[in-house]
């Protein structure tokens, strides 16, 4: 080590200091703090101090019908949303991968919803899916002679509508990632497959899909993680209703933490969410095989 190494170390740390100060205050301290809070009874409304209650919050959670409903709703949403957005994204990537006139227009129009702010998209769809017979969705149904539906007010339809809106909002992003990955598949592979007599479908099934596995893995993992954290569209379009038909984990966390200000209970919800995400990611990693993907 040279004599300037101490000064050099200090300079190195100074360069890191601002970023890591923020991480410490807003990520590292909170992740430990919320773990501790999850074992306390801590209401902000009464200005009380956190009171240690052991596992009481977690035990209560698993007896709380609304929480259990929120878990099921979140899983239901994830099952509706993840495969649909991925499959649609993949199909249009496949269709828009060849060069043909108008391709860029189609790509662009499918991608635009991705950049529209979530809040704006949610309000637009709230108006379009309004139960009123003159809403756009119901007028379209009317063209086929189908009576108006309460897209967001019918407990059976509400979550389906939310998932549909989110597919609309995000499939362009999945398409974009698939397109980028398809471009990196060597053309020779398709050529030699053709020499062996492979047709369009066979090329897709035996070359494209297997070679896109890393992208699919990435998209499945991130989409599942995102879907378990859905909040904004539900907050805006249904408020978790009708009843608790669309209350998801984060919506319930918001209710408990920032409407009722039960910080201990809400922290327990957040840690259950965290645990679920860790387990899900782990399972997916196993499911896709052990190859190094990231």
């Amino acid at each position: 080590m040279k004599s300037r190494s101490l000064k050099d170390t200090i300079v190195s740390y100074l360069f890191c200091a601002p970023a890591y100060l923020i991480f410490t205050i807003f990520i590292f301290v909170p992740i430990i703090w919320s773990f501790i809070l999850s074992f306390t009874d801590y209401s902000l409304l009464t200005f009380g101090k956190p009171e240690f209650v052991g596992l009481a919050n977690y035990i209560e959670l698993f007896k709380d019908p609304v929480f259990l409903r929120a878990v099921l709703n979140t899983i239901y949403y994830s099952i509706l949303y993840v495969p649909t957005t991925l499959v649609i994204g993949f199909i249009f990537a496949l269709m828009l991968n060849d060069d043909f006139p108008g391709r860029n227009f189609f790509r662009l129009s499918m991608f635009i919803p991705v950049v529209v702010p979530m809040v704006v998209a949610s309000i637009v769809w709230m108006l379009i899916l309004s139960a009123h017979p003159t809403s756009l969705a119901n007028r379209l149904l009317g063209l086929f002679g189908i009576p108006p539906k309460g897209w967001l007010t019918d407990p059976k339809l509400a979550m389906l509508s939310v998932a549909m809106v989110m597919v609309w909002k995000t499939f362009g992003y999945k398409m974009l990632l698939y397109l980028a990955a398809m471009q990196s598949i060597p053309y020779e592979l398709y050529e030699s497959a053709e020499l062996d007599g492979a047709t369009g479908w066979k090329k897709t099934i035996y070359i494209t899909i297997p070679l896109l596995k890393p992208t699919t893995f990435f998209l499945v993992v991130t989409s599942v993680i995102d879907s378990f954290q859905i909040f904004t569209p539900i907050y805006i379009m249904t408020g978790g209703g009708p009843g608790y038909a669309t209350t998801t984990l984060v919506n319930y966390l918001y209710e408990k933490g920032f409407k009722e200000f039960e910080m201990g209970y809400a922290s327990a919800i957040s840690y259950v969410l965290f645990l679920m995400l860790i387990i899900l990611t782990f399972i997916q990693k196993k499911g896709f095989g052990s190859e190094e993907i990231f």
Partner: protein
Amino acid sequence: MRKRKKPILLLFKYLLLSFVSFFTLLPLIWMISTSLEPDKGLESYSLIPKEVTFRNYVEAWNYPKLYDPNVTLGTMFLNSIIVSSIITVLSLLFDSMAGYSLARKRFPGRNFLFWLALSTLMIPFYVVVIPMYLITMKLGLINTLTGLIIPFISSGFGVFLFRQTFLSIPLELEEAARIDGAGDLFIYWKIMLPLVKPTIATMAIFKVLWSWNMFFWPLLIIQDYSKMPINLGLTIFRGQYVTKWGLLTAGMIIATLPIIILFLTLQKWFIRGLTAGALKG
């Protein structure tokens, strides 16, 4: 190769793509035409307005005055611009500084720091949000623009991305400058940063988009109409607006326009920014 497909298949493809594109754009087209049509009750909204007016925009602009006489939609628009530009500039600065240090310097604890930056990527925002709120409260930043900005002026993702980019720059450039007696600040600012302009642009777009669209955090900490970013403002008014679709859609277009304009002019960078998290190298 590319034998031309049968024309009937090509026609089918065009029909399907046009159909899907139309339905993808339909909500946005409907939003625009609703905002341009005079308010005449629900039935009158059609995809092509029969009569065009900008009255809705003027009314939407002034609507927040009903709640706070000093606030227009412009105030909220400005808040959004302030918040997203400060977040973008500061996080680019801090992330690239840390990235530079982690990629280019040798010091004890470097690997641990890198591992810490990576670990922030695994921690979901909602798991830390409650203590984040409590800390922001203790710092006295609830209901301030500073409180909207501070937690997001650096990101593990940014540190990671800048580190990777700096690693790919040949050492010789830096060594030549060091022999000439240049210090770290000079090397970072004058030599390294200009070499990673694509990463800067990519991250800038990513950050602008992210901070402009941010919703949960403002919802938690902002109560004053004068401090609301425009996205939050829209939801506050949606209850009252609900029968005034013309006004509401006009407000939404005002909130969306900057992002759409940015997207259409900087498409290439947008796409890079949005795919940056997913693709290697």
